């Protein structure tokens, strides 16, 4: 069967065989909030922001294939609350100090927090001490702002064919590792690589381009993240 009928938030939507719930929703102009999912990359299923209820059971929509007759809840107060919680926890586990971050205004973590109505995290900050690696001449990695979405890993492996990044550790110790015993400058990473520009936050940043767009004209200054998907249809 080529065409699959599913229901998202009460609206009947048509999926193609092999499409995930996320892909189906985007094609139908329905925004399912997401952080680690990126259209150009294979889905990772890491962040759980895109969790929806599939026939009442929570599933990550970026990895879950659409199937005939599925009834999906996406835009509900309970899911919004869960998603805001995830974003809050990411804020307090890292050291996300927006005022001096190069990614401000273009950051997907910040934009999701705006969309979910976070004014200030309700949990206390952990203030972990995390080092910055600025050894590379053109790119730096600041793990203070890393949300462990794994986009850099997937981009480097699948698009750039370099495998510069990987995960190491478990739980609170999990972090982005480099494919070298040395520093970022010892890897094959190039500023033109997909992995150098795919980070949703200010964790992997190309040097000397920060703050180029003035306040008021940045990506998420005027409209919430997801508006482009909702407006497409």
């Amino acid at each position, binding site marked *: 069967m080529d065409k699959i009928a599913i229901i998202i938030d009460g609206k009947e939507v048509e999926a193609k065989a092999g499409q995930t719930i996320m892909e189906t929703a985007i094609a139908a102009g329905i925004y399912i909030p997401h952080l680690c999912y990126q259209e150009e990359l294979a889905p990772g299923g890491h962040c759980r922001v895109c969790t929806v209820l599939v026939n009442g059971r929570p599933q990550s929509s970026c990895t879950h294939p659409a199937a005939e007759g599925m009834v999906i809840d996406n835009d509900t107060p309970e899911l919004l609350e869960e998603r805001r919680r995830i974003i809050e926890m990411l804020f307090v586990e890292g050291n996300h100090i927006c005022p001096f971050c190069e990614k401000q*205004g273009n950051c997907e973590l910040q934009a999701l927090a705006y969309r979910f109505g976070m004014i200030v995290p309700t949990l206390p*900050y952990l*203030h972990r001490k995390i080092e910055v690696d600025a050894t590379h001449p053109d790119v730096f990695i600041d793990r203070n702002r890393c949300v462990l979405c794994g986009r850099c890993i997937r981009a480097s492996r699948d698009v750039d064919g370099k495998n510069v990044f990987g995960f190491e550790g478990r739980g609170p110790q999990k972090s982005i590792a480099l494919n070298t015993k040395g520093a970022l400058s010892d890897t094959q990473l190039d500023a033109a690589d997909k992995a150098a520009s795919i980070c949703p936050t200010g964790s992997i940043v190309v040097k000397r381009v920060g703050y180029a767009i003035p*306040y008021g004209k940045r990506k998420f200054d005027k409209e919430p993240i997801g508006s482009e998907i909702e407006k497409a249809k």
Partner: protein
Amino acid sequence: MAKPKVATTHMTGCFGCHMSLLDIDERIVDLIQLVDFDKSPINDIKKFTGPVDVGIIEGGVSTQENVEVLRMFRKYCKILVAVGECALTGGIPSLRNTVPLKECVEEAYLKGFTVVDGVIPNDPDIPLLLDRVYPCHEVVKIDYFLPGCPPPADAYWAALTALLEGREPELPYELIKYD
């Protein structure tokens, strides 16, 4: 009827949030028609003259004196509004929270590059530093938060006029920013 009173203070921040309050430009004339300023760096009144309707707090809590000022504001103000990232999260001063206080002070006053005959200041007039920088709402109850670094002048205007008219402040999307 007497005009409502507004008090403001600055703790561990950069005064940028007060500058942004002044950025409401000529509306400051309208504002002083609406309210009287009590204790505030804007008019340099040092002590509360009595109870105040709205208290505006800029900056995080990093010293013993900050704690005293904040508690005093809570005591005198009916509504307390924390403004700016430092008041809301600790902001840039909270960078020191990843370093133990002793190391931090030693680096600044004893081991720093440019230090000659360093000594850690210990004058009784200098407020003691806290172990780390705290957001205001971890010290006293805060009624409203105005995010931004600084909050835009229009956000001040929208929030203040709503509070003074007894409405719940509702800010449009483009006025809520963390930067």
